């Protein structure tokens, strides 16, 4: 089993995309979108994080399904924590 070696070009490309994403986050934050400011900011962050995970952390090239399972379950657990507890906070005044 030989490890996948990504090309230099790809790395630089991802790097530039990430930098652009950062600038974009700052710029978009100044445009009034109401609650969507947060949505946009977090979406950009998620795209950036996904790029890092897939390319810098090589998840795209691993044959190991397990890595994906580990990441996804950690995110699901985070979602459990946030969603179920917000079920309390959001309905306390009802």
């Amino acid at each position, binding site marked *: 089993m030989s490890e996948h070696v990504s090309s230099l070009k790809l790395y630089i490309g991802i790097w530039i995309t990430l930098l652009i994403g*950062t600038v974009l986050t700052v710029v978009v934050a100044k445009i009034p979108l109401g609650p969507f400011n947060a949505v946009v900011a977090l979406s950009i962050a998620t795209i950036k994080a996904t790029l890092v995970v897939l390319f810098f952390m090589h998840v795209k090239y691993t044959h190991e399904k*397990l890595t994906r399972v*580990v990441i996804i379950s950690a995110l699901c657990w985070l979602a459990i924590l946030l969603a179920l507890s917000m079920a309390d906070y959001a309905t306390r005044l009802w």
Partner: protein
Amino acid sequence: MHTSPPATVEGVAHENPALLHHFATEEQQKNAANLGMWVFLATEIMFFGGMFFAYLVYRYWYFGDFGAGSQSMNVTLGGTNTAVLICSSLTVALAVRAAQLGKQKMIVVCLILTMLLGLVFLGIKGVEYHDKFVEHHVPGPSFYFPGHVPGHVNIPINQQHAQIFFSLYFIMTGLHALHMIIGVGLFAFITLHAMRGRYHPNYYTPVETAGLYWHFVDIIWIYLFPLLYLIDRSQ
């Protein structure tokens, strides 16, 4: 501690001194280390997750005060730091690539660059902390944060709620910085080994796993930046 292979193991030749006694093959060892790091990162997600939960609750309750607190942050420094971390992620990725290709010098150069970028990040963070300190934005008896809620000149900032924002800011960025310091320490150790030429295309697991850790710390910051610096900036 326990690197000497037992005499009894089946006929596998131990050319690689890094192969520990209880693994049958190098691949098994590498896969174990890799999975171990990923599982560890999963625990890290939950560790920061607890903070994100606290953040979410109070941001929901005290949105205005959070907006005000956020606007006192220095976006230039924060943004620069984001870029610095992204660059360091690139250099780590390149270090791993260099190891895969067996470019000894390149590994060392990339790792040193990474550590430098990490230190730059910590330096800038230090400047920001210092500013907060001077401005009395550090939670405690001398905490003082006058002004009004962004977009509502009529609503003054609630000191207690703003203090919660800054508490979360310091704890979240502080824990993040602690992770950075640990990362730099790890890389210092690995750089030493790299200089002695211990890594080669068949064995570079430490570079790779430490790299995973570093990327993860980068990702946390990718979220912290908008969450802490960019609340309600459009007002």
